[in-house]
């Protein structure tokens, strides 16, 4: 089977000969224009480092207060998690679950998976779950909505400023840092390279045993 000599465009199914790209070059599909690959410098090392940072940042951004307001002498602060709980307490559990998954659960799982995968590749360790982790990470990607949540924070701030004075907390700063890290993470993660390395590791492992 020599199918690896060819490639197909995921959106128009054009049969392609994959180009050998250097760092900094991009390959677009000649028929539909889709960005096919874009090799990154030290993709595994950078993904590993960014995953560790993101994983650490995740906890303060979920647990520390992001914002606080004071109305008639009463003060209230909110965290990512307390927003979910507030919706639950109002019996809006379908919405609460959606917010919980998109802003807490999926980002955590995604960053843990990328930590596990890049860690294994960095230390050249084989693991039979690598393939499953890669597939989960791929499917989760679309459902992580941290940047959207950030816009939600901005709009909420504008609305709240009309009611009462606002205060920002460490949770918000950690959250902004987390968004920057996850954005860098997705742009540095070279899917194609990761799959190639996983296959290599598996072959080496099969030869060794």
């Amino acid at each position, binding site marked *: 089977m020599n199918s690896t000599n060819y490639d197909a465009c995921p*959106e128009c199914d054009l049969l392609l000969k994959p180009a050998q790209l250097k760092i900094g070059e991009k390959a677009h599909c000649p028929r539909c224009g889709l960005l096919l690959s874009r090799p990154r410098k030290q993709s595994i090392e950078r993904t590993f480092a960014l995953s560790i940072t993101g994983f650490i940042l995740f906890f303060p951004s979920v647990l520390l207060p992001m914002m606080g307001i004071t109305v*008639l002498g009463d003060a*209230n602060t909110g965290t990512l998690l307390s*927003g979910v709980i507030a919706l639950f307490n109002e019996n809006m559990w379908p919405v609460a679950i*959606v917010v919980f998954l998109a802003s807490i659960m999926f980002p955590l799982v995604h960053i843990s998976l990328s930590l596990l995968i890049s860690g294994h590749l960095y230390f050249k360790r084989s693991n039979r779950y690598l*393939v499953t982790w890669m597939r989960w990470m791929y499917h989760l990607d679309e459902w992580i*909505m941290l940047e959207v949540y950030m816009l939600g924070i901005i709009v909420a701030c504008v609305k709240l400023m009309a009611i009462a004075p606002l205060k920002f907390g460490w949770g918000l700063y950690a959250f902004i840092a987390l968004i920057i890290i996850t954005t860098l993470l997705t742009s540095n993660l070279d899917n194609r390279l990761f799959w190639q390395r996983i296959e290599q590791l598996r072959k080496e492992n099969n030869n060794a045993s």
Partner: protein
Amino acid sequence: MQAKTNALSQGFIRCHDCGYLVKTGNQSLSCPRCNSHLHARHPHSLQRTSALLFSSFLLYIPANIFPIMTVNQFGAGDPHTIAGGIVELIDSGMIPIGLLVLVASILVPSSKLIGIGLLLLCTHFRWQINARRWTVMYRIIAFVGRWSMLDIFMISILVDLVNFGEVQIIAGPAATAFAAVVILTMFAAENFDPRLLWDNQKNL
């Protein structure tokens, strides 16, 4: 090999999960690299997409007529619909933010519903179109969908923070319907297979 051929017509299937190109005919229906099931095109793409689209159309109505949140102040309730919240923002001079919410909660969902509907009609009736342009439209639809969740996240923040004895913000029934619309249209876009647009073109 011709300059432009479909992988499928040459007997290749691209694995959806890992991108591996597999020569069909060797009877294996799972990807040798990642073990996921192989399909030349997304299975039942049109049926699934239209079912999801139809449900989101139905839910889009309550999402827009019922209040998405209610502001309770000193015993008096003030319900807001999605459109009402935008009008209020613009009235109070917050025009850029008002426009942002207008785009995210009204323009994006409605153009998404129409866009996916058009894509379905196009593939069903095998319209001869500029497939490249339509693929770009699909790509935009798939990309912008998640940004509509903005309103839902904003409500979760407001409900949590504005919770005092005399002043309270409560989420309304439209929030559930709207979140469902966003998620269903995201699934609809995910289930649509843009390669069908190309398959139907007689002369490429």
